[in-house]
């Protein structure tokens, strides 16, 4: 008796985390900060894809290629730090952004996008906090900057070759959840 009824319950997805449903949320989440940065989070996704081969690529993308921004945000821009930032600065920036963007602390209306934002922040952090990966990334980044200068456009051949599989992606729209 008990087990049949609970099975019914367990086969349905769990209730969405509705923990922010009551009370005043505005004090908890500086949502404006999340918003301001979301513009280049989307663009930065392409950069992530080229470095972390296992991260999702643009299979599900429906966006035409000409919507690719000329210069997607670099990991440094995502973390809002200068290119010469120290390891401590990178870690501090990561924590500062995590305190705002992690789904556990984001406001209820930001829950869906905050996981994506956090993953992008984490992707940037995991590359920049590893000295080898960072050196490799810095090389790619400077190559990209050169090519952009040469061809004055994001769709230059060398830029594309440097970032294979590089297309914008956005899981919310792509997956149509």
């Amino acid at each position, binding site marked *: *008796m*008990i*087990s*049949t*009824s*609970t*099975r*019914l*319950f*367990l086969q*349905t*997805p*769990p*209730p*969405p*985390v*509705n*923990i*922010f*449903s*009551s*009370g005043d*949320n505005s*004090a*908890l989440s500086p949502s404006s900060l999340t918003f301001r940065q979301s513009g280049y989070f989307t663009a930065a996704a392409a950069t992530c894809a080229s470095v972390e*081969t*296992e*991260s*999702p*690529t643009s*299979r*599900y993308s429906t966006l035409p290629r000409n919507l690719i921004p000329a210069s997607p945000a670099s990991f440094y821009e995502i973390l809002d730090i200068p290119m010469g930032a120290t390891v*401590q600065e990178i*870690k*501090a920036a990561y*924590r*500062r952004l*995590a*305190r705002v963007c*992690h*789904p*556990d*602390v984001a406001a209820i209306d930001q*829950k869906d996008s*905050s*996981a994506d934002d*956090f*993953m992008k922040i*984490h992707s940037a952090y*995991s590359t920049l906090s590893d000295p080898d990966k960072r050196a490799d990334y810095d090389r790619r980044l400077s190559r990209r900057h050169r090519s952009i200068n040469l061809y004055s456009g994001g769709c230059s051949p060398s830029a594309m070759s440097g970032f294979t599989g590089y297309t914008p992606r956005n*899981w919310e729209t792509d*997956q149509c959840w």
Partner: protein
Amino acid sequence: MAEQAYTVASDSETTGEEKTSPAFPEIAIGIDIGTSQCSVAVWNGSQVELLRNTRNRKLMRSYVTFKDEVPAGGVSDELAHEYDMLSGAAIFNMKRLIGRVDTDPVVHASKNLPFLVQTLDIGVRPFIAALVNKMWRSTTPEEVLAIFLVELRAMAEVKLRRPVRNVVLTIPVSFSRFQLTRIERACAMAGLHVLRLMPEPTAVALLYAQQQQQSAHENMGSGSEKIALIFNMGAGYCDVAITATAGGVSQIKALAGSTVGGEDLLQNLMHHLLPSMDHIFSSHGIEEIKRMGLLRVATQDAIHQLSSEMSVPIDVDLGNGTKISKFLERAEFEEVNKEVFQKCETLIKRCLCDAKLEAEDVHDVIIVGGCSYIPKVRNIVMSICKREELYSGMNPLEAAVRGAALEGAVASGISDPFGSLDLLTIQATPLSIGIQADGSNFVPIIHQNTTTPVRKEQNFTTVHDNQAEALIFVYEGDEKTVEDNHLLGYFKITGIPPVPKGVPEINVCMDIDASNVLRVFAGVIIPGAKCPPPFMEVRMPTVDDGHAWSAQTLHKTYGSTLDLVTVKKKGQH
């Protein structure tokens, strides 16, 4: 209780109404269900408070006694004597039994408990029963846990003078996702909604993060990053976590866990004192259970005393001419449990290695759990971490539940004017998750110790020409072959175009969200297709009890016809 389960399910649909209610958000309570003891804590508005039962106890024994019609748990029940718990009527150690099949060595080791654990060794759930009126009355670990949680909930509601629904529960690191579903089921049966299932050492890590933040405030310090190693060993499980903490953010770097604990120490010593134990107790008669109980209590007392004494006298008359009378040395106890202690060592070393850290990098070494009082355990931790002192700012028996209460407050959206709740845990996956491919190999897609939330994907391809379908078997674990890992579920992909083997591109994507829900997306990618077959989205785990059979049956029915192989990345040819 069946109605309560429905209440839980329907509650999610009424959240819109709650939004408009002016009431304070419900603060989720933290519950630490230990193999042997359990406790409840809650954020009271300014700090974490442990709730006491009617007998003024903060720590309650985790057991349920079955008597006539009404079962009674350790929350409200007070035992006249320890032996009453060992009369056959009480079920305990449910945390060691929940979500395990009868081929599991942990279940087999539980056969020496003074109630009935019967196995048929075919991969189904074990038969568990309590002795009621000289009859074995069957139950399940989920039911026992649910009865216990109902009592805990009632106690908390009386203390807090409000209904309690949302909870943060601590769990062992080594629990499979299938076991987590059993915990969730028990909570649903008790009318509780699980906000988070938090690995025990990560709850301790959150408490540590709060303490560090407070001391940084007091000393006006910079709050620079601190690395802590947390070793948690209770009666049932041993867990290790490494966390990097600064500014109230606890970032879990690595997790390692195993099914070794005080129960193993106890059973090994019982075997040592009475080598013919298994044989004597195998019949599970009423007399045998009584004798088993006597030996258990005597051994347990001896272990407790050996934490402060170098040797302890054991004098127990088991009846039927069986008497044990001897002095037990601490060294003897340590020798008998050599393997358990070695496992603890291995776990700590593995965790350090996974976190890419040396012992010298660790600022604080925290040791919690019931076994933290055992000198040998402390020595092992201190010697591997190369230090003379352990972190002293925590009560070893309360740290996990306090951390769970903090997480409960943070996840409930509570903020504190003094910044005491400006906390965040960045969790990591304790086990790898992947699929079966390349024969019976386990191909991880999300690796162990990956920060969550996370989304990873990998491409696979067919092994036969014109293979139209493929089976996706999702496993969790860190062994090379799938048989040694936990099956989470399986589903079929259809509509693969009729092309030679190795050509189709089958994409498998795994997503773990902040609530630790795992979703697997999979489908075939057909470039340029106007109307490609839809992808599958499957919430895992989907398996139920006896799941070992389903995988075997599928392999028997389909052989390798629906197999997949990994696609080699460019540059790896």
